[in-house]
């Protein structure tokens, strides 16, 4: 019997690159084509850089209060002075209107406060372990009540810009911590559910339905109210993370279970089983790599939900409590109409929430589309 050999077409260099591309490369090539997702990725990375270097970026101590500088409106930096480059802000003179008892500020053009890069300010630990006092920008030898207030100040005279930097760290990290916990619970319980099936599966699925049927706000209210008053800020932080991820894991568990059920029937998984591969090898070599990308995409899409949860909880006064600083806590200050009419700049804290959530959603969409380069 004659056998015809399949003719191989001449192979070009890009074809070899494609032929030998791993899943990660294929995913990246496809993700790169999604411009909006790519821009979102850059934005998200920037946000996390802010979270890491929050204290370095802050210009004033975010916790320092000063009654003499409450409700200062956002201040612009003047870049040029007498023909030369000399960034500076004017000193402010607070005058109380004796009829309304409101402080109003007038810039004092005779007092120029030079704004410098890498100035010494309040002490902090860079990356959590390098004690320093260098800040990106600020005013050298700031006297009492002096400073750059890019986004203005709140009622207690705390610099909103600096507080937003520090709040970014808390809000973004609480989302990350919540998602990590959800991921762990979701993969574990979803995996057990999909792998073993039967009554275990039924039990876990009914539990998920039960958890999802409970209205979240009252549940969180109840749980948050149960937190002892005496707990420190850190303890409350971790408790809130736990409460948020209590609901968050259910989505991920469903994704993981679905993938397990689908993959169990895949020919290449059956092939491995018929080859005599162990259960462990089948799960870790064949099944997990096949849905890791889906899980990453699902996680990215779960993050904004976590951030929103923290923000709304703290906004309602159920989440973190001052002196902790988070986006929700900053927005709490903007709750009443009196403050809003007098100091609308406090609403600026809503901007990063919106931006980061949109960015995460676009990023998650892009990842989800690129996740399965073979589909």
């Amino acid at each position: 019997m004659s056998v015809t050999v399949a003719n191989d077409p001449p192979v070009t260099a890009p074809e070899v690159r494609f032929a030998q591309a791993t899943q990660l490369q294929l995913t990246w090539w496809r993700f790169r084509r999604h411009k909006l997702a790519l821009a979102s990725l850059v934005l998200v990375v920037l946000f996390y850089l802010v979270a890491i270097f929050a204290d370095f970026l802050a210009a004033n101590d975010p916790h320092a209060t000063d009654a003499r500088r409450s409700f200062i409106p956002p201040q612009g930096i003047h870049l040029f002075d007498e023909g030369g480059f000399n960034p500076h802000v004017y000193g402010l003179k607070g005058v109380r209107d004796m009829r309304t008892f409101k402080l109003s500020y007038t810039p004092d053009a005779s007092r120029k406060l030079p704004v410098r890069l890498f100035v010494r300010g309040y002490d902090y630990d860079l990356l959590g372990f390098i004690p320093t006092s260098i800040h990106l920008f600020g005013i050298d030898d700031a006297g009492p009540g002096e400073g750059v207030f890019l986004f203005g100040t709140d009622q207690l005279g705390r610099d909103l810009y600096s507080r937003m930097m520090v709040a970014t760290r808390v809000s973004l990290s609480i989302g990350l911590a919540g998602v990590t916990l959800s991921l762990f619970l979701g993969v574990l319980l979803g995996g057990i559910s999909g792998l073993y099936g039967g009554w275990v599966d039924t039990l876990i699925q009914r539990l998920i339905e039960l958890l999802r049927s409970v209205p979240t706000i009252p549940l969180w209210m109840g749980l948050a109210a149960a937190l002892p008053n005496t707990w420190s800020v850190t303890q409350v932080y971790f408790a809130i993370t736990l409460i948020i991820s209590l609901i968050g894991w259910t989505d991920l568990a469903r994704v993981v279970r679905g993938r397990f059920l689908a993959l169990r029937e895949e020919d290449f998984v059956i092939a491995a089983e018929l080859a005599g591969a162990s259960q462990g090898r089948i799960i870790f070599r064949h099944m997990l790599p096949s849905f890791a990308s889906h899980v990453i995409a699902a996680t990215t899409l779960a993050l904004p939900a976590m951030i929103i949860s923290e923000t709304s909880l703290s906004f309602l006064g159920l989440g973190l409590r001052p002196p902790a600083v988070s986006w929700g806590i900053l927005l709490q200050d903007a709750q009443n109409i009196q403050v809003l009419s007098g100091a609308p700049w406090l609403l600026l804290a809503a901007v990063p929430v919106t931006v980061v959530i949109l960015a995460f959603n676009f990023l998650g969409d892009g990842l989800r589309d690129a996740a399965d380069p073979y589909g």
Partner: protein
Amino acid sequence: MNLLEVQDLQKHYPIHAGLLRREVGRVRAVDGVSFQIARGETLALVGESGCGKTTVSRCILRALTPTSGAIRFTPENGRAVDLATLPKRQMRPLRRHIQMIFQDPYASLNPRMMVGDIITEPLKVNGVPAAERRERLMELLELVQMPPGSRTRFPHAFSGGQRQRIGIARALALHPQLIVADEPVSALDVSVQAQIINLLLDLQDRLGLSMLFVAHDLSVVRHVSDRVAVMYVGRIVEVAPTDALYRAPRHPYTEALLAAVPAPDPNRQHRRRVAQGEVADPARPPPGCAFHPRCPYTVDRCRTERPELAATESGGWVSCHRARELELAGVR
């Protein structure tokens, strides 16, 4: 001693209904199938979709656990074991003797593994040292006529036919004694089908393979099989040596399947007896002969009495009440 002897194999799926999940019926996917495969022989298992042929093959591979029956497998220099009742744990050391070629060359290769790793995975999980694996990989690539450079590439770089060659190389890696090929060419283009069939023929010659070749029509089977078993609604209706079956089918269903084989000569007018209607529902098979609602030769007896398999003079078996009297059309 035959390599494989399947006796009265049954695989039923219970149908549950209601809150208490009571069993209200059974899908008899495979309902009493018996056949043998001798060493070096290729048996084709043919039937329409849903007749249970894939279920039979999955039972032999113990991807499914049969409801009842025996699957006696006798490896070379080994004792006969009944695969039907073997616990999964004891099945693992036997897996290396029975390997499978899949229908869909796209789904059967893990897209995240390089071709070399895919082919040598059976060797790796069975503890073959790395140096030996590399050597065997080169042998296998040559055997299925793939360039040696394929080993560092991923499956997405290959066409359907090439992927099927990779799948065949993987199935051969452990020197299996029996290969179960589940419609290995149905998903391929006709021109590529010929290449793969030729490759299988070549391998039969060179390696003396024993094979269970599952197919849904009779067109490709003629070239590869020594004997053909035709299945209908969970049962074998006719078994015969390939030539005898094609020349003189004894069961009306076989005749219908043969009539469906496309003729390469456009001028030749076939006496077409393509089966009318749909395949019977294996949950509610018709009484008597399961084929009687679609059979052009039905008599009253067919509607009430189920025919048993009976030996024919040409060395086959057929289950039809009128097998002796009918003159059925075959192909040249």
